[in-house]
């Protein structure tokens, strides 16, 4: 026989022993960490279960890599043995990371539609934990997706070294964290499913195109240059390309032809500064995402 549940027969005194678990700060923190882990785990389960998403997340970047890569190679030509495919490769990997992270974050819109968001929001847990879990989950699946893209490197003539792979994964994670928090913030403002496609088209595509992922940012008209410098992705993609190019055997002519650093007011930003800017963006988006979710219900 099962033991009688304690809640059953005994009349609990209000705010008595029943309330103690919520009071002990140690328990609270470990409970919140469990919540972060659980939200993260759910994100992974859903990612693994939706194979179509993994495949479609690969097809688009692959198309860009080969179609755009070959198409533009004819136009841009080869400089010192370096071609446009090699230039665009880091950008395309970044693109798959960004799209996966964004998609993962925007699944909150689905959760709202199908009610699961409510299950999360009514729970007696901190919304910081929910956003942290969501961010960690989105970042993980995005980094996994980006890492899968590494198998294409040899096909376009990019040499991978173990150090480069580690550097790339770290930068993918940072980029993904920033994009997931951004996505959660956007998703917290989207009330309707129909708006989702619009947001993807109107926000994600321009952000990608104006980030330097698919073509060099030099030689753009002034107003476009301003937009690219306001785009957080610009500062995430430049370091990514820098570490990839640093590991390649490129002639000085090729390096001059395909610059990687972001310039701001004529000043070339060091990689550390670019990364710091991404971190700041990620923190700001995290706070906005938290506030966005706090407003719901």
């Amino acid at each position, binding site marked *: 026989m*099962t033991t*009688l*549940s*304690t*809640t*059953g*027969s005994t*009349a*609990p*005194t*209000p*705010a008595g022993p*029943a*309330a103690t*678990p*919520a009071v002990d700060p140690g*328990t609270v923190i470990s*409970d919140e960490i*469990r*919540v972060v*882990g*659980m939200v993260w785990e*759910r994100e992974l*389960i*859903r990612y693994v*279960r*939706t194979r179509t998403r993994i495949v479609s997340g690969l097809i688009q970047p692959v198309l860009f890599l080969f179609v755009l890569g070959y198409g533009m190679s004819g136009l841009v030509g080869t400089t010192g043995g370096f071609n446009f495919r090699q230039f665009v490769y880091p950008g395309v990997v970044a693109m798959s990371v960004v799209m996966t992270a964004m998609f993962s974050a925007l699944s909150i819109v689905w*959760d709202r539609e*199908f*009610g*699961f968001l*409510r*299950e*999360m929001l*009514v*729970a*007696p*847990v901190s919304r910081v934990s929910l956003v942290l879990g969501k961010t960690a989950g989105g970042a993980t699946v995005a980094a996994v997706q980006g890492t899968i893209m590494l198998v294409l490197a040899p096909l376009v003539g990019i040499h991978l070294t173990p150090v480069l792979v580690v550097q790339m994964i770290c930068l993918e994670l940072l980029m993904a964290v920033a994009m997931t928090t951004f996505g959660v913030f956007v998703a917290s403002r989207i009330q309707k499913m129909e708006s989702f496609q619009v947001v993807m088209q109107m926000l994600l595509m321009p952000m990608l195109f104006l980030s330097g992922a698919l073509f060099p940012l030099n030689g753009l008209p002034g107003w476009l240059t301003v937009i690219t410098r306001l785009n957080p992705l610009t500062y995430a993609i430049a370091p990514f390309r820098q570490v990839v190019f640093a590991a390649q055997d490129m002639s000085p002519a090729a390096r001059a032809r395909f610059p990687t650093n972001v310039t701001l007011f004529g000043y070339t930003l060091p990689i550390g500064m670019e990364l710091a800017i991404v971190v700041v963006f990620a923190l700001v988006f995290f706070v906005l995402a938290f506030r966005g979710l706090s407003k719901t*219900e």
Partner: protein
Amino acid sequence: MTDVEAGKLQVGASANSSPAVDVKGLTKRYGDLTAVDGIDFSVGQGEVFAFLGPNGAGKSTTIKMLCTLAHPTSGRAMVAGFDVGSDAKSVRRHIGLVFQEQTLDDQLTAEENLRFHAVLYGVPHGQVESRIARVMELVALSDRRKDLVSTYSGGMARRLEIARGMLHTPKILFLDEPTVGLDPQTRALIWEDIQRLRIEEGVTIFLTTHYMDEAEYAERIAIIDYGRIIALDTPDVLKASVGTDTVAIETSDDEAALVALQRAGYTVERTEGGLTAFVADEEAAVGPIVAAAGVPVRTVRAHRPTLDDVFLHYTGREIREQHGEAIPMMARARGARRS
């Protein structure tokens, strides 16, 4: 006839235990619209308490305030001994919630949904698996534990949500229209689940419904209309308040039957095409009345006041089954009388 005004009724169940839910003057306004209009009631521990009313009556709004999802415009509510206004987190830890709309992740299995919930509600790590097994057993879904929720029928999903609501051993389980849109068999299964939860887990149950027939399963019912509680009592008392049971008969000789029944001590009246006896319990009275009539009885119609009669009595309208809307009596009178 007793006046079953809500405000005058305090919890009767057990005097020495504090009520599970205690509400005073609870009001919610949305702009000009008063969704809940100063209601008072208490729910005793271990009680099954139902809010019965048509769509738009304010049932969901009341549940939302009790579960701290909506802030009362005025009034006070204590749930599980905690104030919904000042101690929302404690309230949420001690209640289970099943919304009117589904809130499952259908890309996860039943078990994964439950595990997620267990973590959100701080079920101790060592108890999670046994608790999942227990609640799945309570709603008889143990064999579907590992299936994706997307393969579940509407009724199964609803029952899984009830199981999930019970996972963290809440003191009170709130169910907002748990049976709406389900077929009669599934509705019956859900009611079996609810009774089982009550008996085996000792949980207090607060539910809303617009199905008259279902409210009968509750120990006490509050009838709510336009945000006000218009009657509150046990189903039997409510029904008794609108009239007694009747047995109508048609016989071969009504005159003789009338005399015979009156001599046997029945209160009998001559009515259209026959006789009507007013009795305490129609079921038990049918046999004796037929025997006491002394002449051949052609037809017998026994009637006990239903909650439909109660709703009609207090509001002058009746709840239309399908949509849960209250329709005026006039509209009903114009239509043909059915069943």
